[in-house]
């Protein structure tokens, strides 16, 4: 009997009725994780998980997360458990503290099963650049199409129903885009709503901790557990917690939703467009006002370069601690400069070094005005324009990807095409403005799922879930996993 293709809500019912125990769930998850063919795991914490699960005896009725197994992206600090960020430079790093989100889930008696792969240091969107190699898309037995990244392992594990939810991080679209390739609900909150304490920083002004689930309701449950002020995180929001389940089922009647015409125009894939248009019809039929509006194309085109400059600049600084002196395999050398250079040369892959160079270059005194500060200005322009849209609309709705199947080799060559610049990169708007942003599956293309995205005003995470719930009900893709699809 398999349980882990069920949602958190379903599992809670079974746990309450004692049809299943946390230990049984943990065992099943660990078995599946061990057999995982997709290279989704850095570490499986069998001993700790089984110990903790066996200590859980009486199901807490009002705690929907009690005894639920989960996995966590390996750039989130776990005390006494190897946390590598899928990078050689941290391959032996064992943190001495838990991230705030881990602490909260432990409090809720969730059982951590393992740490999942990512694009090295969360810098990448393909799921191919971690030190353990490519993480595969569970929907693709041929292993040629990407699961996306950087939260590739966390996405693959939930899509493969190893666990019902997982933690990830999202700096450009690192949860919400892979969620599309994995047919999952992927969410990042309003910036500051979920503590980042313990998340390895990539670009703090854009970084978010978020999660993957297989239903909107599960997501709202998780957000209730993870949100909240954390004094250890200086950017943490005070007094913005609400019960995200309270209005979840209130529907979309009268909700104002807009779609950017320029994003639709940048997509050629008929399956995606048809499914997206159908979902718009569904929203309208439920009473939502959906309008197609125009958004300045030059701003949409600027998203990717703006993102690259800001994120690389912040990244080069954030990762300067990884110098071989405190962390990482120590390089040889007679001076501290030699030690650092050799450690970092060996410890980082070429892609990471390339991003550090871009970041450093854009921060140089002579370039800062032209690159870093200009990118900051572009970010402000984009956010201001989006905020104008939010004066009229509650939600921005868009497809997450330009196609469901994105080959690992080959892919989109023309990095200056609208398909790449806009269709594949617009989700970073959510990071620029710190908006709550949620992806959910809206269709399948020959066995490959794909998502659309709902982005709302800051602090209105609850509304995003409410709209997501209504949409999910109309589509029939709730609790999608490879087991469900195969059945």
């Amino acid at each position, binding site marked *: 009997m398999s349980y882990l293709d069920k949602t958190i809500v379903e599992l809670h019912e079974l746990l309450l009725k004692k049809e299943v125990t946390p230990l049984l769930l943990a065992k099943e998850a660990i078995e599946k994780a061990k057999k995982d063919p997709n290279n989704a795991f850095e570490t499986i914490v069998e001993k700790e998980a089984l110990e903790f699960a066996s200590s859980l005896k009486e199901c807490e009725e009002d705690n929907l997360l009690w005894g639920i197994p989960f996995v966590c992206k390996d*750039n*989130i*600090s776990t005390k006494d458990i190897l*946390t590598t*960020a899928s990078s050689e430079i*941290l391959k032996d*790093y064992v*943190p*001495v*503290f838990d*991230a705030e989100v881990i602490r909260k889930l432990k409090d809720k008696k969730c059982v951590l099963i393992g740490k999942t792969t990512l694009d090295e240091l969360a810098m990448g969107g393909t799921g191919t650049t971690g030190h353990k190699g490519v993480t595969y898309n569970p929907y693709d037995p041929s292993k040629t199409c990407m699961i996306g990244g950087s939260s590739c392992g966390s996405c693959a594990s939930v899509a493969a129903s190893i666990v019902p939810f997982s933690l990830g991080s999202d700096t450009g679209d690192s949860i919400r885009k892979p969620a599309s390739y994995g047919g999952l609900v992927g969410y990042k909150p309003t910036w500051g709503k979920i503590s*980042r*304490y*313990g*998340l*390895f*920083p990539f*670009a*703090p*002004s854009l970084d978010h901790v978020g999660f993957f689930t297989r239903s909107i309701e599960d997501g709202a449950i998780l957000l209730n557990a993870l949100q909240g002020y954390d*004094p*250890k*995180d*200086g*950017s943490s929001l005070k007094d913005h917690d609400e019960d995200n389940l309270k209005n979840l089922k209130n529907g979309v009647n009268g909700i104002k939703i807009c779609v950017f015409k320029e994003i639709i125009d940048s997509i050629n894939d008929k399956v995606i467009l048809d499914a997206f248009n159908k979902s718009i019809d569904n929203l309208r039929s439920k009473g939502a006002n959906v309008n197609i509006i125009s958004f300045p194309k030059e701003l949409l085109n600027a998203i990717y370069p703006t993102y690259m400059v800001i994120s690389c*600049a*912040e990244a*080069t*600084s954030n*990762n*300067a*601690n*990884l*110098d071989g*002196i*405190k*962390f990482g395999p120590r390089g040889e050398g007679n001076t*501290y*400069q030699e030690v*650092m250079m050799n450690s970092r040369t060996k410890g980082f892959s070429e892609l990471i070094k390339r991003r550090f160079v871009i970041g*450093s270059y854009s*921060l*140089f*005194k002579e370039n*800062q005005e032209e690159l*870093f500060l200009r990118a900051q200005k572009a970010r402000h322009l984009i956010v201001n324009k989006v905020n104008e849209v939010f004066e009229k609309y509650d939600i921005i709705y868009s497809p997450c990807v330009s196609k469901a199947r994105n080959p690992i080799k080959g892919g989109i060559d023309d990095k200056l095409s609208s398909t790449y610049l806009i269709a594949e990169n617009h989700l970073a708007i959510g990071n620029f403005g710190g908006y709550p942003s949620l992806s959910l599956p809206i269709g399948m293309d020959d066995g490959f799922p794909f998502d659309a995205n709902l982005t709302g005003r800051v602090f209105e995470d609850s509304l995003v879930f409410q709209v997501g719930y209504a949409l999910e009900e109309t589509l029939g893709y709730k609790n999608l996993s490879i087991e469900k699809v195969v059945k």
Partner: protein
Amino acid sequence: MNFEAVIGIEIHVEMKTKSKMFSSSPNYFGASPNTLVSPLDMAFPGTMPTVNKQAVINAIRVSNLLNMEIDHTLYFDRKNYFYSDLPKGYQITQNDRPIGKNGYVIIDSLDGKKKIEIERLHMEEDTCKQLHLSTYTLLDYNRAGTPLIEIVSRPDIKNGYEAMKYVDKIREIVVFSNVSDGKMEEGSLRCDVNISLRPVGESKFGTKVEIKNLNSVSNVQKAIDFEIRRQSGILLSGGIISQETRRFDETKKETVLMRKKTDSVDYKYFREPNIAPIYLSDEFVQKAIDTCLPSLDQKRDYYLSLGLNIDEANQVLLSFEMSNYFDKLIEGKKYVKTLWNLLMGEVLSYLNKNEIEINDFIVTPSNLVTLASLIDSGEISFNQGKKILQEMVKNDDDPKKIQEVLGLKQNSNLGDIESFCKEAIKNNPQSISDYKNGKDRAFSFLVGQVMKLSKGKVNPQLVSKVMKELIDKE
């Protein structure tokens, strides 16, 4: 040709807050290496800075004492560079918007009062301490993250004396506002001097030389005076000054080359993304200022108003801690002179002899006040007071109890005193005639004899009075 020196000084002050600038690690000097360390101080991935409120209050107070404009919004920036003493690979500082700007202090220069302008005051964090050994370097992260304020003067200082006075003034301000120990020898106040020479009347600046490792106020003066001579010598012989960093060698009493300065490092500053701007309310800033401890000048005025003379006042004020103890003694504004005498005499020599800091002095101020009251009421003599004090330093016992146990009580019975005096006069006829012939010392001798006969138990003031009356009658 005559040259004038253009001198600017950067002072780093380590704040003595309970915890560090951005982490909750304890912050104090002298702990075993690497025992005051939290994950943030070692730059563990995922740790995040939170701003120390007391450090902000301190920075506001010092900015105010330096007559600066105070920024009511706090911003922090990252200063990026690789160095083995820098855990994160960047330092969190305030580059763009220092909390204080455009201030000044008044110093006593050789030509009278002089205003030294101060460009900026900002908060930042310290690096770790390095101990370079033959083939390796030891790192102590205790210091990493210690809150600092950096105070940057404008180049208004003209010579070593003014520099010394300036540093001393800053030290006084940070010490008396309870912001820092201000100990240059321990590195809790460090100063870097920038100095260049130019012909008198020239408006262009000469090449700047930086002097580091100045571990006392007097070395600041010596280093600058040496450097002025060195640079004038080079310029007069037609040489050119090279841009370099020098340090002061205490044994040679001269500055020596540390390194030539090449192109300055690009620190790639940018706003610290993990600290959102912090808005300080007017009330918060005003409260920080209003609750600041009194300055040295304010304390001195107060002591003078209680009857101390200026030398006495200055002596207590040589040490912030000593003056704080004295403040507790004189809370009741009574026995001020006696308390000063006890503190600066017996207590100080006891502390010095036993190498005890006043903060660790066992005797509570209230017991010392009781002792002074016994002396001032004539209950005991000052000398008896000293004997009691010798006991008090053991267990901080009540001086009245000690007095009882030791049987120390001053005898003020006029009959007793008169008979002692008569005996002394009888025994020392020579002294009487000496005194009558104008030798004042003979009188003191006679009083001494009375004290001896009474085993020190009679009131010396009364003895003098009675003795004088008796001799006059003879």
